[in-house]
């Protein structure tokens, strides 16, 4: 597979006042794909994104965007990228059209060309009706759409989205996802951060899981899930039986169709090659031990499972040292 590399990140590190934000981050983004940086708040996603956008200088390592080094040639990088920051980066007193007009001038579009381009973008994100209202009258979803229009204004080859659906309602999220897929359809390389597992799963062609400033896993959602090795059978025991959970686990270990068994708060997670062969074995073992099962469930691995497997914790857990943003 020799796909064109749009972004090449090599051993990137950033230290803020003695605190390490990211360390040894390396990955490649292929041209025309949607690439995700997935991780909890404070994991280092935004720091990585900001370095790629030339807003921060890395402490160590290198990164190139479309062949231009982000430290040596920031000007060239800025000419090729678009940025969709988090929702609040909007001037509430300016209208949608004025936002785009401002950016048109900052990207040095010829004055004669910009009105046409601005109309085109307003139409693309369905904001024509509200184009001349101040942004403070916009809903969260509309602000997001304006953000995307702003990001598209320079006609970028690469677009960076920072938490594109943070705090949006379900309908707006789905619409934003459609826009993001639309970007890919136009041949734009999309790099986005997210802390929503379903978003990464549905939207990203490939992603990295970042936690504690380091890369924990890299691949397509499918590869990552397959990498866990098989589907999962979850067994729930009644509370009275929880004392015997280890005995049951021991009885199941070593079975040819079972890859791994791990204890959970309510029972067991059993990683299996095929559920057909395993289910009878589980039931048989439980029967033999006279261990009453409350509930048994089978599912394909989700990105949640991938995240837990690689980081040792769920994405929503709060950490005392997790910084804001």
């Amino acid at each position, binding site marked *: 597979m020799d796909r064109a590399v749009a972004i090449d990140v090599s051993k990137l590190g950033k230290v803020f006042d003695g605190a390490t934000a990211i360390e040894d981050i390396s990955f490649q983004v292929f041209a025309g794909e949607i690439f995700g940086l997935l991780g909890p708040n404070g994991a280092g996603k935004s720091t990585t994104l900001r370095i790629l956008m030339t807003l921060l200088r890395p402490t160590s390592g290198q990164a190139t965007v479309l062949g231009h080094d982000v430290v040596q040639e920031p000007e060239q990088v800025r000419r090729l990228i678009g*940025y969709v*920051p*988090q929702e*609040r*980066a*909007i001037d509430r*007193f*300016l209208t949608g059209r004025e936002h785009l007009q401002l950016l048109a001038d*900052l990207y*040095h579009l010829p004055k004669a060309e910009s009105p046409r381009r601005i109309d085109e973008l307003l139409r693309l994100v369905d904001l024509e009706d509200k184009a001349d209202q101040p942004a403070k009258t916009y809903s969260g979803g509309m602000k997001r759409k304006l953000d995307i229009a702003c990001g598209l204004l320079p006609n970028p080859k690469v677009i960076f989205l920072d938490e594109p659906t943070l705090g949006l309602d379900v309908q707006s999220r789905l619409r934003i996802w459609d826009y993001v897929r639309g970007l890919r359809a136009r041949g734009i390389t999309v790099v986005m951060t997210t802390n929503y597992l379903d978003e990464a799963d549905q939207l990203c062609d490939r992603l990295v899981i970042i936690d504690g400033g380091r890369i924990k896993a890299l691949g397509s959602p499918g590869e990552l899930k397959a990498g866990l090795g098989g589907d999962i059978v979850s067994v729930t025991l009644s509370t009275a039986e929880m004392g015997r959970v280890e005995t049951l686990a021991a009885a199941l270990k070593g079975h040819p169709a079972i890859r791994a068994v791990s204890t959970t708060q309510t029972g067991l997670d059993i990683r299996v090659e095929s559920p057909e062969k395993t289910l009878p074995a589980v039931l048989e073992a439980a029967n033999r031990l006279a261990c009453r099962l409350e509930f048994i469930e089978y599912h394909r691995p989700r990105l949640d499972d991938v995240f837990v497997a690689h980081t040792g914790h769920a994405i929503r857990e709060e950490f005392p040292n997790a910084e804001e943003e």
Partner: protein
Amino acid sequence: MNEYRQEIGALTMRWVRRLSREKFSMLFTLVQPMLFWLIFFGNLFQRAADVRVVQAPNYISFLAAGVVIMTVLNNGLAGGVDLLFDKENGFLERLMSTPIHRSSVILSRFIFVMTITSLQVLVILGVAYLFGVRPATGFLGVVVILLIGLLFGVGLTAISMAMAFSVKSHGDFFSVLGFLSLPMIFLSSALVPLAAMPTWMGVLARFNPMTWAIDAVRPLILSGWAEALGPVAMVVVVMVAFDALCLYGSARAFRRAMG
């Protein structure tokens, strides 16, 4: 060069638009609190202030120069506030991700703050005129007063922007602002001439660049060119040094904040 002009024009226009959207804020920007100092303080102390001490026909004509420079002080020190909000809500990052000259954002702010300040100074001088204060040096004198205001304002705005880029929160910013501005006014020749101050205050006031600016503006209003030329030449020297220092500091703060 064309690109530079396009950026700065668009960014300056944004500040103007923001101001014009806030009708109240626009009204209060022009009818600013500084007018109250001139009108109320000036008239209140008309009889309490000894004209032999202030060496002016009346207190309000003495105070006019002080109020002009106080206006410059307040505008300058508050000049970075909008950049602070831009920094906090991420708008600054959006601007910085575009291929603009790094200095354009700052320059647009200077242009905007200086224009507003000059308009306010004209309003102050206009109201003073209604109270019978006629600048002794005439139209040209008013132009020189505006230039002195610009020289002082550039340094102050630079300090304000440096603070905006350095502080952790806007709470800190406003605390420092509130803490700075009153001592700056009392420890200057705005309200009382240096000679009439307690010795220790007079000594401190001499180190306040504001004193130099006021002492140059005052003879332009009260006396005439003969007395004004010396202090005006002096204030140019002082302000060039002051501005150089402030601009150096703010450039450093900006570079640090922008990684």
